[in-house]
Each structure stands twice: as structure tokens, then as C-alpha cells.
């Protein structure tokens, strides 16, 4: 009985198709990715069933850390430049053009405006270890109110989003909300994380 000869086939596979798919996916993820802005504090937002997405543009972000410190951020580099200029005029602090540019590229900050100049001039790596004291928002010295008000003067279509840690105590929230109401912001959003409805 003659042996049936099985022809040897090459083991190398054409990888072109796989490469195509891989690079297609790579392109998709590269375009879809949005790097998380480095935040000065870690905030664990409370869970909720709310489903309203956060708008992409014109957001004024007030972050409250779990030790009740208030941080502020504004979207849009040119708005931030104008904002810093206006705040400088109000508190009679002169900011140079270079400082304004640096400020516009920063993420959330949380310190009294007197310390802001020092913070801006730190290198981005050193900013993390800066002892942020939070923006004062009590009735004696309400700088948060000024930040909010001057931002609204810069662009009135800002939405205010409050990103609070789940352990922020109620008096702090109340203070922030009162500040916003003083500045005629009566509609705002709480940033929450997703939770499936039970």
C-alpha cells in the first residue's frame, strides 16, 4: 500500500489582514482617547442613577476634596487668560504674559489668590507637592465668589459643575452653593458616577 503523501504546507500566515485591523483599532483609540487632566486631588464621586452627560465645552468645574478644600477650574485657554487678568485687576496683583499662558494651561487649582503667583511659577512636577489650602469661600473672604463672577463676566454661557467627594461635609457644600447663589448661579450640576438602578 502506497503511502499517501501529504504535501507540506508553509506555516507562515499572511498577516496583512491582522495588521490592518490592529492599526485600524489603534487609530480609533488614538483619536478617541482623551487624557485625563492631572487633578490636584483624588475625588471619589458619589454614585447616582442620573444620566445627564457633562457638556464638552464651557464648563466651570468646582472640585471639593474630602478634606473640604475647594478647587476651581475653567475650560478654554483664552477664557482663563482673560479671567486671570480680571482677577489680577480686582486683587491688584500684576501677572505677566508668561504667567497668564502658564495659568491657562493649568488644571484645577486651590489656593488663595495671594499664593497663586508662586504656584504658577512652579514647574508642573512640583505643583503636585504644593500645599494647597483650598480657595477661601467663607463669608469673611469669598474668593470663590469672585472667581465665579469674573468667569461669568468672561463668558456667560458657562455651566457650573460641582465635583464633590462623597465624604465632603454638608456645611462645605452649603457654603459653595450659597456662594453660587450669591452670584446668581441657581442651576448647576453635580458630577456623579454611574450606578445601575436597583
Amino acid at each position, binding site marked *: 500500500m502506497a503511502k499517501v503523501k501529504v504535501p507540506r504546507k508553509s506555516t*507562515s500566515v499572511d*498577516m*496583512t489582514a*491582522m*495588521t490592518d485591523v*490592529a*492599526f485600524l*483599532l*489603534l487609530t480609533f*483609540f*488614538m483619536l*478617541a*482617547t*482623551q*487624557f*485625563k487632566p492631572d487633578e490636584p486631588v483624588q475625588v471619589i*464621586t*458619589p*454614585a*447616582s*442613577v*442620573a*444620566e*445627564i*452627560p*457633562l457638556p464638552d465645552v464651557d464648563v466651570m468645574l468646582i472640585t*471639593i476634596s474630602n478634606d473640604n478644600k475647594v478647587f476651581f477650574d475653567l475650560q478654554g485657554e483664552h477664557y482663563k487668560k482673560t479671567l486671570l487678568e480680571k482677577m489680577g485687576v480686582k486683587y491688584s496683583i500684576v501677572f505677566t504674559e508668561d504667567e497668564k499662558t502658564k495659568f491657562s494651561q493649568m488644571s484645577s487649582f486651590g489656593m488663595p489668590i495671594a499664593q497663586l503667583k508662586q504656584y504658577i511659577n512652579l514647574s508642573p512636577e512640583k505643583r503636585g507637592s504644593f500645599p494647597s489650602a483650598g480657595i477661601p469661600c467663607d463669608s469673611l473672604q469669598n474668593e470663590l465668589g469672585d472667581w465665579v463672577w469674573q468667569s461669568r463676566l468672561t463668558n456667560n454661557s458657562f455651566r457650573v*459643575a460641582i*465635583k*464633590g*467627594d*462623597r*465624604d*465632603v*461635609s*454638608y*456645611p462645605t*457644600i*452649603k457654603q459653595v*452653593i450659597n456662594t*453660587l*447663589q*450669591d452670584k*446668581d448661579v*441657581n*442651576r*448647576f*450640576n*453635580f*458630577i*456623579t*458616577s*454611574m*450606578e445601575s*438602578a*436597583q
Partner: protein
Amino acid sequence: MSEIEGGGGGKKKGGKPHGKKLSTRVDFTPMVDLGFLLITFFMLTTSLNKPKTMELNMPVKEKPDDITAVKVSQTVTILLTGNNQVMYYFSDPVTLDPMTPQITDFSAGGIRPMLLRENKKRVPNIDSIQVYKDLYKVSRMTEVDMKANIARLKADVEGLIVIIKADDNAKFSNIVDILDEMLICNIGRYAIVDISDPEIELIKSSAASLKAAGTVNN
């Protein structure tokens, strides 16, 4: 696996040195490796889901002549306090005193059944909201219609009005939780109001009495 042969142009043994035909096949393996490495990196760093938000409307401040009077019988006051506990009470229509304050929590069996029951008592057809939502899901109703119908039911004048007050021990998550319950229970009218001294006393006294009875769970 490399398929590019380093052909040195053949041997120079007489005759024409005809160039050896090089294979045009290139080994793709390193490129694919790199591609998948980058895919993995971007997949891990990307955050596709946008943060969700919860909208809150507060009344315009300092307009004492603008106060809306509401029926006492349709309001329930919810007090938020520490330890994730909530206390709720209805007020006596005549004396306005709190009637039998109850202490509960945010679990599914906590405050939600009470809110659902009391709201249904006042708006009997509140359950139609779910029907509208289901109709929209099977696309037998347009989104505009669904929203209009839901808004109409939520704005019912007879509906339950919830007054939310938090004391200094409450946490931000408690506020979000109770606003969540408002969403779940389809309560359209609620307000966050500053707490008053008698209510702080009420919380204190009932916490003390609960402790004495040894029924504090958390």
C-alpha cells in the same frame, strides 16, 4: 522568520553577475507586535464614558415676597443626618408640629417605599410614567411625547412635595442619594432648605432615645 534574504548578489564566478531576485515579502511580526502594544496602551488609558451629572435647581435668593405657599398635608420633611441615616416626618395640618418622626436609611427598603407610597396616594396615575418609558423603548411613542407626559405627571399640583434638610453631620453623598431617590420615585417638586433649630433638637432627641433603646444599627 525573516524573509529578507541578505543576498550578496550571487557568486562572482564568471558570466554576468546577474542580481539575485530579492523577495518582496517583509516580515510584519514586529510591526504587529508594536501595533497591539499601542492598542493595549490606548485601551487602558482611554476613558470612553463621560462623567454623568445630576442637575439641581435652587431658588433665586432673597425674595421674601416670592414664597410659594404649599399645603402642609402634601409635604414631607426629610432630615439628613450622620451615619447615612434619614429621618422623615409629616406635619400636623393644624399645629404644624412634626407627627411621628421615623428614622430609616438610603437602602432600597428604606425611604423609597414611603416616598413611592405617599406619592402614589396623591397622584394615583404616577405609575404611568413607567408605561410611557416602556412605550418609548418599543418606539410606540416619540421622545418628545414621553417627556411631555412625564413632566405633566411630575408637575401634578396634588403631588408629594419633599423638603430636604441636612444637618452638619450629613455628607455630600447623602445629598446625592436623596436627590437620586427623587429621580427614582418620580417626585417633581422638592427643595433643599436650611435646617432649623427645632429640627436639630428633634434629631438629637430621637438619636438619644434610639440609643437608649439599643436599636441603632449602623
